[in-house]
């Protein structure tokens, strides 16, 4: 743990989440990036349990979350309500928002500035 914020990527498909992590790791090697992709059986979907477990697995107290589609957000919302961690869900385009955020976290840019910069990438409510 070398940054104050971890990044959680939630996708309906495991390889989409892990593929995005691969992309982010390239520009943010010191940022903890974890994924919760697909259901626990490896099917397409999202899993509340998997998201919750992954959230808890962060050493960081603060976790920034990015997601792809509808049920990912709903499961993230529920997991957020049930954790002690300080979780923020960002409603940006999945890849662009996570990529920009990870790059800026790596460069130690403060969260407020990061949020300002990714505000134009917000495409979900």
């Amino acid at each position, binding site marked *: 743990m070398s940054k104050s914020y971890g990044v959680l990527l939630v996708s309906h498909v495991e390889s989409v989440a892990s593929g995005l992590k691969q992309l982010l790791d390239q520009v943010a090697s010191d940022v903890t990036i974890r994924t919760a992709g697909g259901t626990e059986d490896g*099917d397409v*979907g999202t899993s*509340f*349990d998997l998201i919750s477990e992954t959230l808890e697995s962060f050493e960081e107290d603060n976790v920034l979350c990015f997601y792809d589609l*509808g*049920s990912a957000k*709903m*499961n993230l*919302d*529920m997991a957020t309500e049930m954790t002690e961690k300080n979780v923020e869900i960002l409603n940006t385009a999945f890849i662009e928002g996570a990529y920009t955020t990870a790059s800026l976290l790596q460069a130690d840019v403060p969260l407020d500035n990061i949020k300002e910069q990714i505000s134009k990438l917000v495409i979900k409510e």
Partner: protein
Amino acid sequence: MAQTEKWIKSFEHFSRKITDEKSFLNELDSAIGDGDHGSNLTRGVAAVNEKLEQQSYDNLSDLFKDIGMVLVSKVGGASGPLYGSAFISMAKQSKESDDISSLLSSGLDGITKRGKAETGEKTMVDVWAPAVDALKDGTLDQSVIDSALESTKDMKATKGRASYLGDRSIGHIDPGAQSSAYFFESLLEAGVTDE
């Protein structure tokens, strides 16, 4: 019959309908979504039944909480957190009152809070909202459920997976509205709505 027993019976009816109509629900979902509504809910209700067989309940709150948490964990699609939130909201409300309309009204609140949907957006809310209204004035029957369900056909989806289809979603019954219709039918059949 105690309220908890009626609710358990109602859930048995719901489980059977979902399981029997799994392919039909998948088919409805294939037309405007990702085609797994029946499979997802069938997995969820099976897990709930397993839980209910192991436990006995003397209050609605514990029953609803267990149903809600299992649905959230096991369903996998958006209907898991939506139905789950309904039951979790009802679990909280049942500590205040076991009145059917106040319980289901808070169930509806749970769904709208989670899914941020309003009526007219072609979602399960389009069955829940009129059904809860009818419960409040004691007029819920099969015809209320049927017409609420049918009304989703001509709606354009603006929430959920179907919204990506825009106008192409018009002309199809919403799968979440269909499973919600089964839910309210089950309440009627099990006598939960009787005074």
